[in-house]
């Protein structure tokens, strides 16, 4: 015990010391709220109990109440639909644009930076914009349809329960495309042009080169982009809140809006915490899967083209 510490032990001790501020930050702003949330989720907490200090431990009652609420499952379905539709469209359009911007053309740089504006705008602003553009009476899209003689296509996008989800997804795709495009573009630049040249010399046409070179080599980047997209999209709140507030009826009440409602409209903190933790499940699973996959890739550094 009294032995002087070896150099490596001293080093690792200094290392831990350097980690301390970061760890303290994480503990204070991540672990504490999360654990507090877990604590709340197993107690019967509503507004009346907050002051009296009489939160009763009620085990899994809150989880049971949430799981027994059809509105919860409805919002889970909506979240999945919203996420899936947004991801597929964002990724496809983003990929197409990345391919376009991968080759230099006049004003390409300017256009690319302009596209980024969509992603830089605060969601509240883009939500308000789309709310106005999709408005049934004075919206820009309906005016456009009328101007080109397609007034049959004009529609009350956001106030019709059957199209409001499409309207919200549309806005979210617009917001997400530049982000997808940018990351995929970076990925495209990492592909060695010589590979394409060699393939072209071997007689591969453009489609074959895309299918057998670009796509496989882009797989790691694509997974990252899709995963980040999943995390961003699944927890969407502001955009939907501004555009429809979850309505009409409950047509766009995605999971985060449901949690918000239970928390801040009904003031059922226990149930809200339980639902909030359930909201974490999907991103958490996706994240765990991604980390595992990353580790596999590091172990077998063969890259994408397997």
């Amino acid at each position, binding site marked *: 015990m009294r032995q002087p510490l070896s150099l490596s032990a001293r080093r690792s001790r200094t290392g831990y010391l350097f980690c301390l501020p970061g760890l303290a930050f994480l503990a204070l702003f991540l672990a504490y709220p999360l654990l*507090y949330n877990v604590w709340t989720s197993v107690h019967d907490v509503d*507004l*009346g109990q907050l*002051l009296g200090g009489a939160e009763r431990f009620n085990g899994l009652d809150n989880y049971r109440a949430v799981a027994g609420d059809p509105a919860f499952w409805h919002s889970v379905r909506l979240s999945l639909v919203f996420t899936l539709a947004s991801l597929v469209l964002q990724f496809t359009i983003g990929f197409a644009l990345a391919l376009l911007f991968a080759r230099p053309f006049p004003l390409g740089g300017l256009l690319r930076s302009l596209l980024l504006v969509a992603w830089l705008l605060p969601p509240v602003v883009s939500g308000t914009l789309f709310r106005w553009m999709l408005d049934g009476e004075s919206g820009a899209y309906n005016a456009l349809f009328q101007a080109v003689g397609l007034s049959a296509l004009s529609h009350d996008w956001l106030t019709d329960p059957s199209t409001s989800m499409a309207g919200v997804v549309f806005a979210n795709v617009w917001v997400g495309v530049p982000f997808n495009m940018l990351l995929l573009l970076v990925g495209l630049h990492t592909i060695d042009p010589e590979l394409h040249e060699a393939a072209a010399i071997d007689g591969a046409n453009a489609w074959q080169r895309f299918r057998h070179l670009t796509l496989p080599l882009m797989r790691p980047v694509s997974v990252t982009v899709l995963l980040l997209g999943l995390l961003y999209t699944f927890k969407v709140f502001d955009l939907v809140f501004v555009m429809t507030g979850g309505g*009409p009826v409950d047509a766009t009440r995605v999971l985060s809006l449901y949690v918000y*409602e239970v928390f801040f409209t009904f003031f059922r903190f226990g149930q809200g915490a339980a639902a909030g933790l359930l909201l974490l499940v999907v991103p958490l699973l996706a994240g765990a899967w991604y980390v595992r996959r990353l580790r596999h890739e590091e172990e077998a550094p063969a890259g994408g083209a397997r």
Partner: protein
Amino acid sequence: MSYPVDRRGFLRVSGAAAATAALGLTSCTSDTSGPVTLSWWDYFTLDNFQPGMNRLIKDIEAGVPDVRIERRSFPFAELERQITLGAISGDLPDLAIVDNVSMNTLGGSRLLADLTARVEKWGQADEYYQGPWSGCQVGGKTLGIPNNSNCLALYCNTRMLKSAGVEPPTTWDELASAAQKLTSGDRYGLALSAIRTEEGVFQFLPFLWQAGGDLDTFRTYGPTALAFLDELIAKGSLSEQCVGWTQQDVNTRFLNQRAAMQINGPWQIPTLKKAAFDWNVVALPRDKEAATCLGGENWVAMASGKHVDKVWEVLEYTQRPSVLVPYLVSFGELPARKDLADRGSWASDPALRLFLSQLPLARPRQYGAHYAEASQAVADAEQAVLTGSASPSAAAGTAAGKIDKALGEQ
């Protein structure tokens, strides 16, 4: 995880503080020396409210001995949430001006100081209109004092009604036929708000009450009210877009002359006075009963505050006619007190006068701590019917189940 323990300790302390404050009647707190600073929360953030509010506070600081006011204002939708969060963090004001519908949530939460004994000694309860006053009574206790009141009525575009040969409607049947006659081109006969928030419910409840029902009989009377509105949409007299309109949007429609009639409150009068056309206001059309919904704000004192007696002095002071009348006039609001009916701008302005005459019919939304859930169910039912995704009886049935559950759970 030592935090929850700390937190419980904190709660125990604040619980004790609340209990002391509730018993504050017997303890004497007013003999402290030096001025007392009271923190005050409200949601009057708009510029046009500031001069009146600042004058009121200056008045209070001059008129009530040893008091300083520290005011914070929040956006309308944030105040109730902020108070709830304050209950968790322990950061609550001494007094607040809250929306009257907040009495449901806050009243059931032991957050508000009991003013019953003070009010009894004061003896001015009978001066208030019954709706606003009863809205401050929760579980047999007086938890607030009405600050100002408003309600809904029907605004009519005078010229449009005249050229269509229509009299301002007084019954549902007349409303339906007038709205239909007034609809032409891109102009709707009627505009109202059916948005999925409390605002939409505020506008819907009068229809339910006029049909002879209430929340506890939603299954029976809900379909009547819902079907009436559905019919207006089916005939094109009311835009289906109203499921997304706030009352502000409704007023904009009316101002742009894209709606010949609108249901709205007296707070729109200052804007409408600048309109380039003539308009007038009539009572909401009746069916089995005449009814309108009560809006407005109440004063509340927080039970956690240390100066409830001082707060009461302030509240009492604000209710003196010499203070209240100029304040209400500057805000363009109506008094909740009958004894002020013949003073101030509302005595001469015909539109304000009409709203004032409706206050005795105005019902508070007084349904207990879980009203928010009942309200949400009503909003969902209305939206489902107006967007054509459910029949009035089916939607009312679904809503009634949720409403009964929310109201039964006290």
